[in-house]
């Protein structure tokens, strides 16, 4: 049966390669098989290992291949860090692992929590020109049915930003009403200094601007280049996970960055990094 399954997947690949080159075939090695078992293949598996869930593939694999060894949650969580050119501090990581694995007050990740985010770096065409857009998503769970879905909570298209230039000489004078705002036309055409004519309370909604450009057809979505997950759910901690596609056991979805953050700092992070309006 598995042969057929893999055949199916192989066929899927056939279509991907329009240009064909002759290569030498080598079988999947024992090491590659082992690497695949250790690879954190999806963010679901990341959360399972982080929480030390039962019946997981990694537990099954370890129990079968290393029957004499005992693996704790502490061991599993340590394998979830990226060890090649790490962007996290060793001491901080040790403190993090100790804190979340402290059996008196263990900390876990919840897939259905609203305090973690997926951020997709996307390629779009804006008026025919390739541009990058960042889209932030979050899991939404219905209280009524328990059903879940990913929803878009933020977007950032820097090329759509309004100019932030200011000029004290540019404004609608206080008597503008007397001429039925004759200067408004010029103000609305003054794209570089449009902020001069806005209230100081004005807040840009990046998501609205992005959606408006999609609606007019100015933006056409092309593809997702990369996804990063941002976990803000653990008290005083914030970490990101991204996929490292490379040979070796330390591969797949791994912790990319780790830092200590207060609740206030996390709120800033949501606004400035995740672009949540």
């Amino acid at each position, binding site marked *: *049966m*598995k*042969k*057929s*399954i*893999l*055949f*199916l*997947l*192989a*066929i*899927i*690949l*056939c*279509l*991907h*390669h*329009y*240009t*064909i*080159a*002759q*290569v*030498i*075939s*080598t*079988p*999947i090695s024992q090491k*590659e*098989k082992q690497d*695949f*078992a250790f*690879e954190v*293949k*999806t963010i*679901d*598996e990341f959360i*399972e290992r982080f*929480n030390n*869930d*039962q*019946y997981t*593939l990694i537990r099954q694999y370890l129990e079968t291949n290393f029957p004499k060894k005992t693996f704790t949650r502490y061991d599993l969580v340590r394998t979830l860090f990226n060890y090649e050119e790490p962007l996290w501090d060793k001491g901080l990581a040790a403190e993090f692992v100790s804190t979340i694995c402290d059996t008196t007050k*263990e900390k*876990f990740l*919840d*897939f*259905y929590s609203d305090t973690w985010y997926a951020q997709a770096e996307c390629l779009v065409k804006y008026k025919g020109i390739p541009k990058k857009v960042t889209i932030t998503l979050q899991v939404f*769970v*219905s209280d009524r*049915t*328990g*059903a*879940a*879905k990913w929803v878009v909570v933020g977007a950032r298209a820097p090329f759509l930003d309004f100019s932030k230039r200011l000029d004290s000489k540019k404004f609608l004078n206080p008597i503008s009403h007397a001429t039925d705002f004759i200067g408004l036309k010029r103000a609305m055409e003054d794209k570089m200094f449009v902020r001069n004519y806005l209230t100081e309370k004005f807040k840009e909604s990046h998501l609205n601007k992005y959606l408006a450009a999609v609606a007019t057809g100015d933006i056409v979505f092309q*593809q*997702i280049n990369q996804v990063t997950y941002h976990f803000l759910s653990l008290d005083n901690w914030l970490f990101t996970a991204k*996929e490292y*596609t490379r*040979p070796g056991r330390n591969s797949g979805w791994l912790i990319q960055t780790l830092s200590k953050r207060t609740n206030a700092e996390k709120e800033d992070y949501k606004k400035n990094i995740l672009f949540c309006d």
Partner: protein
Amino acid sequence: MVSAKSFLAKFEIKPVVDSAKKKKGLGPELDLDKASYEQFKQKSLQKTDDLGKYLNLIANKSTESAIANKAIEQAVGLFFSDSSLVETTKPNGDKDQQPIRHYLNRLKLLKYSKVLIEWTDISYVSNLRKAPDGFYYGVISLQQKFSGFIDNKLVYSDVTKKNVEIVLKTYKKEVEGESVELWDVFLNNVGISASRN
């Protein structure tokens, strides 16, 4: 078909929170117990096995066009809907997405004379998550090696990871005058990961 009573029925009314997860203060996670998880996994693998047989027919040079067309219809029937997508990669590295039927029709035109596959006997199957449409969604990750031959010459080979979405769907059927709730598994979107040539 498998009776929903075996494990799914309990989720239909109200999601059951796994006791271990509940203890951790997490939820509403729809974890299956070990036996049910294996049942779901085997059923999912069976579906991909069925699809593999159809693809074999579609891709085979010696298959008559009418038979290949029938195989395409049957293969599409294994998917959740006609709009299920298959991700592909162009030679320049850009990604593309094609609806399953379109994908299979193209497959019919691209025929290797021989295909050899090696795979690991390891597959990751995620938990099932209930979606707003009332169905349950999961993912299977597999690693495979593909070798394609033309006129007995190896022309392409690589090792890749595949993430295949699985949808678990329930439905009711009259059996001897009684309405019985059954469930079945369907394939959905197929994603690809970086490959090693």
